[in-house]
């Protein structure tokens, strides 16, 4: 299947619609055939649902996959959590006939069947494999003179057993996509460390989650970057809204702008910061906004 359906999940449409808009604009500009996925639900969130009950996790995930199967399209996610949940469920159901039969027994209640005909893709691995940095560069109209702290997030690349995206200690494919926009991906301490939000920790143990985030932010600040770039709205929410919570809890004064890769790519494809919803973030860094408006207007 080459056609895609856009799986939104929860945080993108319900908290950071700028990422939804940026993704749609980028996909359109790159001439990728993508449709909405009407009626999709929570993926469901892997950190919690996968931790609660396997049958429920598989049932909800497979319902979302079936919606796309019926359209003859692969699912495209822009979230590491949704990717982890849907890709893992898809893989487990495809390789285990017993589990598939069991899940289909639940799905029978709502009159649908999981067939295993669709793939689950993540926008980063999709762009890397289907375009690659060089081909992507051909579409870039605005060179981004920005220093970026890239955060891969965990479930894009792990478990490596199921992801096949190479090694996990120092991957580089995402850095290459960032640098295709003209930005510089700056190395920093504990770059591959988790943002602290996953596994139900942000919701269940907020204080501990913020401690992990504070460590990450301190490392990023030391690297002296213009912004953080991520590929996951949950990491995005942790870095953006969490940053304000860290400031309050630790008496800190972090003001590091946070962009999803779709928003960074959107800037490089010629869209304005306003169209991409970058101003809607919790962190309001006027200096950064001025800089990207200048870049966007071709003044820099």
């Amino acid at each position, binding site marked *: 299947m080459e056609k895609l359906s856009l799986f*939104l999940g929860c945080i993108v449409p319900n908290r950071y619609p700028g990422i939804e808009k940026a993704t749609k604009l980028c996909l359109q500009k790159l001439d990728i055939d993508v449709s909405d996925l009407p009626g999709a639900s929570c993926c469901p969130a892997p950190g919690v649902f996968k*931790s609660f009950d396997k049958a429920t996790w598989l049932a909800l995930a497979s319902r979302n996959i079936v919606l796309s199967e019926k359209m003859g399209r692969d699912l495209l996610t822009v979230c590491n959590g949704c990717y982890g949940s849907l890709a893992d469920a898809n893989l487990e159901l495809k390789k285990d006939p017993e589990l598939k039969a069991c899940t289909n027994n639940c799905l029978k209640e709502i009159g649908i069947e999981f067939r295993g005909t669709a793939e689950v893709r993540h926008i980063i691995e999709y762009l890397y494999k289907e375009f690659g940095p060089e081909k992507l560069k051909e579409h870039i109209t605005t060179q981004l003179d920005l220093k970026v702290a890239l955060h891969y997030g*965990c479930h894009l690349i*792990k478990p490596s057993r199921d992801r096949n995206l190479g090694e996990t200690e120092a991957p580089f494919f995402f850095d290459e996509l960032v640098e295709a926009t003209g930005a510089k991906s700056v190395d920093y301490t504990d770059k591959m460390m988790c943002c602290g939000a996953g*596994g139900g*920790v942000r919701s269940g143990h907020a204080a501990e989650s913020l401690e992990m985030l504070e460590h990450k932010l301190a490392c990023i600040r030391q690297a002296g970057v213009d912004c953080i770039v991520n590929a996951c709205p949950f990491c995005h929410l942790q870095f953006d809204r969490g940053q304000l919570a860290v400031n309050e809890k630790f008496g800190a004064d972090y003001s590091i702008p946070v962009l999803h890769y779709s928003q960074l790519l959107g800037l490089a494809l010629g869209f304005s910061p306003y169209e991409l919803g970058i101003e809607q973030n919790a962190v309001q860094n006027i200096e950064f906004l001025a800089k990207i408006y200048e870049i966007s207007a071709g003044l820099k």
Partner: protein
Amino acid sequence: MSEELSKVLKDAGLDLLSCMQCGTCTGSCPSGRHTGLNTRRILRDARKNRVSVLSDDALWLCTTCYTCQERCPRDIPITDALLELRRLAVKKGFMLPEHRKISEMVMECGHAVPLDEETKQKREELGLDPIPETVQKYPEALQEVRNLLKACKFNELVAEK
């Protein structure tokens, strides 16, 4: 002492017996650096069938980042094992109130994080439909999700015991 822990792990194809207690998991854990999570100890206790591991809050301090699993010199799928232990814990009624709330949210609106007024406005500013193309827009889709959760007896599982 109960054999249940080892049975659940064994049934899931997880063999903790090859664990040599080297501590690479704990040493690699981003949560353990800041919190009381000691993965090596959880594995040891689980192997010894100590049911106390299920009621220990530390089980819920894992962010499921998979670093321990990737680095384990004995290739033990540690994060998978932790998830298995969590599911057993939930079955026994151990669940954080915040997680119960998220479960209820999904049963009610089909989303762990539902739409709010502030975001509706932000969507409009961007020229997007204020209501996204998800279960939130289609009542029959939401009913499907609810029926599915019911078929899985999820409401009974997460109800306060």
